């Protein structure tokens, strides 16, 4: 979208040779910054392919041959990383699903209906959007303890139904793209309210849902604070908790190759998925930016 905007104006001639110099400067800076963004991951990749004794010899720019070996060692080690991956995936998928669907529903309630307290509700949700989860986590832990949900991933998934930030995005999106006449038309066709929401509104919201699903997924995938306090069993832990445990190093018997492999394991899948979806993700941020 921005490309389009650029080309329309860029038709006119630039003034002076300074443009050329500025262009060079911006390329240099951009390349430098890109380097800064990618450099760490490059080192990570290299180090994940090297054995512990190679690593102790210092840095090298060329990958070595121990990638598979590090992976096998890690996989057969005591850290249940495959479990961690599955846990992270399941929790993140369900969280993303619940958060987007129910936020769309909440936004629809505010958007499409006129009822007493609507304005208050909207204001209220906006206000709680800013309250960090950390300040209520103490009561949250006690509550799930009483509900028997301690050490249970459900306690991390269900609360996603109330996601003020996702709601806010959905509401903004509806304001700009969901004409109420459509809803009226559906009513005239005799569609029930719930059916209208599911079969007309949700499909129309697809772009917003996709974007927020990705963000909710990433948030949940990266979340460390709450899961670390809720999940205790090794087999139930998510990847960030397992990563944090690396800091207590007698874990991998001082094999740095495995440590790098473990970090790589939790970073590279995200990068690959991101590269596939990057258009939607970057575009989605912009979408939210214009309205948010």
């Amino acid at each position, binding site marked *: 979208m921005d490309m389009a905007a650029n080309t329309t104006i860029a038709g006119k001639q630039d003034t002076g040779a300074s443009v050329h110099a500025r262009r060079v400067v911006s390329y240099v800076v951009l390349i430098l910054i890109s380097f800064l963004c990618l450099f760490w991951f490059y080192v990570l990749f290299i180090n994940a392919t090297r054995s512990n004794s190679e690593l102790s010899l210092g840095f090298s720019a060329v990958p070595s041959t121990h990638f598979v070996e590090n992976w096998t060692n890690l996989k057969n080690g005591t850290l249940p990383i495959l479990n961690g991956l599955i846990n992270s995936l399941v929790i993140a998928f369900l969280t993303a699903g619940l958060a987007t669907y129910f936020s769309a529903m909440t936004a629809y309630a505010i958007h499409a209906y006129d009822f007493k307290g609507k304005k208050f509700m909207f204001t209220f949700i*906006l206000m709680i*959007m800013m*309250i960090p989860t950390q300040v209520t986590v103490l009561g949250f832990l006690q509550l799930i303890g009483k509900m028997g949900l301690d050490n249970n991933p459900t306690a991390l998934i269900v609360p996603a*139904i*109330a996601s003020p930030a996702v709601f806010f995005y959905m509401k903004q999106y509806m304001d700009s793209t969901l004409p109420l006449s459509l809803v009226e038309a559906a009513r005239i066709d005799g569609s029930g309210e719930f059916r209208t929401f599911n079969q007309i509104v949700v499909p129309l919201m697809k772009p917003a849902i996709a974007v927020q699903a990705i963000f909710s997924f990433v948030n949940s995938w990266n979340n460390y604070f709450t899961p670390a306090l809720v999940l205790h069993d090794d087999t139930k832990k998510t990847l960030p908790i397992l990563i944090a445990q690396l800091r207590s190093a007698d874990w991998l018997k001082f094999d740095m190759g495995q440590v790098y492999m473990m*970090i790589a394991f939790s970073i590279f899948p995200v990068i690959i998925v*991101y590269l596939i979806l990057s258009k939607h993700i970057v575009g989605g941020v912009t979408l939210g930016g214009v309205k948010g």
Partner: protein
Amino acid sequence: MNKKSKVVSYNKWGYIFLIPFTVIFLIFQLVPLATTIYNSFFENYRSGLTQIGPNFVGLQNYGTIITNGDLPTYFYNTMVMWLMGFIPQILLSLLLGAWFTDPSLRLKCQTFFKTVIYLPNLIMASAFAMLFFTLFSDSGPINSMLMQIGVFKEAYQFMSHVWTVRTLVATMNCLMWFGNTTILLMAGMLGIDPSLFEAAQVDGATSTQIFYKITLPLLRPILIFVMITSLIGGLQMFDVPQILTNGTGDPMRSSMTLIMYLNKHLFSKNYGLAGALSVFLFVITGILSLIVFKFTNSDKVK
């Protein structure tokens, strides 16, 4: 919306569709908030395997937190590390945003650069911090690289100096967020009416002048939005310093953030103090969110 009677009959669905959100919010956020506050008035911790309390102690927990004087220190740490990350982040974002949207530059490979700068935002903060910890350890790759090219004679202890630890935390935060901010600001910049730029160019304004006189003032609302959301995010700073310093916030807790401190009490199951601490944090963020709310409402920009 003309036939009012009909609309009213549908409007009960507004309430129905609000049920899931409201129920879940009440159970998982409001009740915990209330019990957190309730807890702050009690002495409640575990000594070994023996539970002490809960015994009502009034405001004693608040007193402890105020008198030991740690809270301002950790607030200061949090703010310092936030600012150290935020200032370069916003400057960089403005610069890149201006370049990307500057029609006269016609930068190529924009998609590539945008993809790259946004990438760190998606990285698990804990994994990123762990990565930095290993990279910057005394015998880690950064040290060995710097020694190979002769910058240092012996390994520099990145983790033992107040400002290097803070800088590392700030760098990570900046790297993780500047891409996001750039894209937000770009959206704002593209939203500015192009005729304004054209008029300025006709009047002979340079790009620098255009940037300062037109772009920046018009971006003010979105800049404020970015700043305040970033500030609230900054107040919650936890994963990165926690994992980088293994929860110690060393040297001398100079990189201990408010949430790390809260986490310490939660971890040793000292619910009374943790509760009082949460209330303090709640008040601080509450004030800030009121400010945000004011801005988002009054400026009509959103």
